[in-house]
């Protein structure tokens, strides 16, 4: 029982970063722009968070530094999101390629800067002022549930609130309706007076900023530093969570939790007796194989935005 509680707790720890990144991807893709740059936005966020928090720490800002680092991430990611938006929305470049360029440039430029700032070091110094787990009053004292759900990093709470906000904006406000219209049928949206490409441009910027919080989360909780393998593929897993979660905020959160559970499982698998017979790598492989299997059984009802990946040219309406 206790092992189960820790497993669930670990699930939230790993899932938080994925929730942020998946939400960022979802915002962009709902308006019809493919976002393969999630990995890059996470890298930019993690870099910015670690470096800013480090200098805030040096400046003696104490407990504030983690939050300052966290909030710096979207600003840094904005630069890369701007590239993606200019290339793929303004100049109608292949959106997949544009996303990959973001990944390449974010990775190379941040490592370059880390080496530059920290005299050739391959990673930032270890941070001391990072986020700690908060015990939610009263609830955290509950048996089982307390450990499982109510001893969390503050970032997890932010992520869950963001899920609700984005769900609300996406499905209950005129702005959300417009975004979805642009992603489904840009031509009709244009006829209805919606500035298609301007909305897409904005969505790419906001999406990149939200995704960067995922990177910041990793740098400021699990890692306490930034190095070349801090993100290592999490952005792509977040993208899978977007698709797996059927482009819906709640679905994406569910998918992120599923991947989080798989990650927590591989960390804590030695706690379980049955697992000792099986090579650990089987558990590593599990989330990817399960995703494929689930997709095989659900794929016939595709729910991707109809105009995903198609640049919009008003002249060709």
């Amino acid at each position, binding site marked *: 029982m206790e092992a189960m509680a820790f497993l669930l707790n670990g699930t939230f720890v790993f899932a938080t970063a994925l929730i942020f990144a998946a939400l960022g991807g979802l915002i962009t893709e709902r308006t019809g722009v*493919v976002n*393969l740059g999630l990995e890059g936005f996470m890298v930019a966020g993690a870099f910015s968070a670690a470096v800013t928090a480090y200098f805030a720490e040096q400046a003696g800002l104490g407990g504030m530094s983690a939050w300052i680092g966290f909030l710096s991430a979207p600003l840094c990611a904005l630069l890369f999101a701007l*590239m993606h938006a*200019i*290339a*793929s929305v*303004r*100049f*109608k*470049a*292949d959106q*997949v*390629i*544009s996303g*990959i*360029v973001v*990944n*390449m*440039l974010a*990775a*190379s*430029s941040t*490592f*370059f800067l880390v*080496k*530059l700032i920290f005299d*050739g070091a391959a990673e930032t110094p270890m941070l001391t002022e990072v986020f700690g787990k908060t015990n939610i009053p009263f609830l955290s004292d509950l048996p089982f549930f307390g450990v499982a759900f109510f001893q969390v990093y503050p970032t997890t709470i932010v992520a869950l609130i963001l899920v609700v906000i984005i769900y609300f904006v996406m499905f209950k406000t005129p702005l959300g309706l417009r975004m979805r219209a642009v992603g489904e049928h840009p031509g009709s949206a244009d006829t209805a007076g919606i500035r298609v490409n301007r909305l897409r441009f904005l969505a790419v910027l906001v999406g990149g900023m939200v995704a960067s919080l995922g990177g910041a989360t990793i740098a400021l909780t699990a890692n306490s530093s930034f190095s070349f*393998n801090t993100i*290592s*593929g999490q952005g*792509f*897993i977040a*993208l*899978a969570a977007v*698709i*797996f979660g059927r482009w819906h905020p709640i679905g994406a959160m569910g998918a992120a939790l599923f991947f989080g559970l798989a990650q927590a499982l591989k960390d804590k698998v030695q706690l379980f007796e049955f697992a000792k017979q099986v*090579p650990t*790598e*089987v558990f*590593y*492989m599990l989330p*990817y*194989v399960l*995703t*494929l299997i689930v*997709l*095989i059984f659900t*794929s*016939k009802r*595709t729910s*991707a935005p109809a105009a995903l990946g198609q640049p919009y040219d008003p002249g060709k309406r």
Partner: protein
Amino acid sequence: MANHAQTGKSSSGWLALLKQESVWISVLSIIIGLIIGAVVMLAGGYDPLLAYESLLLKLFGSKYDVGEALGVIVPLIMTGLAVAIAFRSGMFNIGVEGQIVMGSIGAIVVGHFVNLPPVLHGIVSLLAGTVLGGLWGMLVAWLKTSRGINEVITCIMLNWTALYLSHIVIRTLMEEPGAGRSKMIQDSASISLDRLTAWMDGARVHWGFAIAMIAVIGYYFFINKTKWGYEMRAVGSNKHAAHYAGISVKKTTLRAFFISGMLGGMVGTFEVLGVFKYLAIAPATSGLGFDGIAVALLGMNTALGVLLAAILFGALMYGAQGMSFGADVPGEVIRMVISIIIFFAAAPGILRLVLKRWPRKRQEVSADGSNGVSA
């Protein structure tokens, strides 16, 4: 990618090639990339001239360096072609990473366990990895054609699955204790060119170079001169029209991904049979598949383009090691340069804007009006 798929239609000879706008876009992208790289180095307090000089010196410094640079270029040619053939068929293969891993699994298993005479053993191991890579690629296409699953997500999932599969295979069948890698292949399975290696002071040259050259020429003939190649281009430019014309989109897609996967698989076999002679338990996939996307894009999915782009990127990547040595510049600058090149090549509209404005300004000055740049 449609705009790239149709290049080369009116090119008769080199002169015509030089008149193509897309070629100019590529060349300009490269120049801008190198200039921005220099600016970044200046901003970081480095000497860009010294850096680029050390890059070139590293490349042509010795026979050893030329051989090792080839070792970087050859996989890029292969992954570039792998991505290109999928692009030409209207598909995006972001799964070359996984296909490379599967190729190396096939090569290490056959190379280590099977007993065959030299040469034959190498060929069989190479084929095993190639076919395994091809099947892994075809799985993506099958999931797309039969279940309608987006190839991007399948590829990403299969990349990680392949990586962990390789760990399982090594750990359960052939782990070299404590070394974090598999046992070695038998000598008979090696595809190294030992004499050439000795002549090049130990540079790890292997048959992969010859295979890559054959692949470039083979790709050109396949895509431009054969029925299957024609069908792929047809499906790539308009799936529905191709279907209406009686081409099986499903079969064509499966075929394209099988070939694409085979090219990727071969890269895995090269590394195992020609370079390392073992398979390491790597924490992540190589990244060569992603580099292949860059190569295919800059090379506009043509045989010659992929070859040139692979040589350029490979040379830059290998030379970057010299840069950090000679001018103390972190090698990441070169990856920045490469991504900037891709950025401008991928969004040709940006440079087209510049190219259009530029001659107009010249006209105002000279009133001559001839512009040789944007045809």
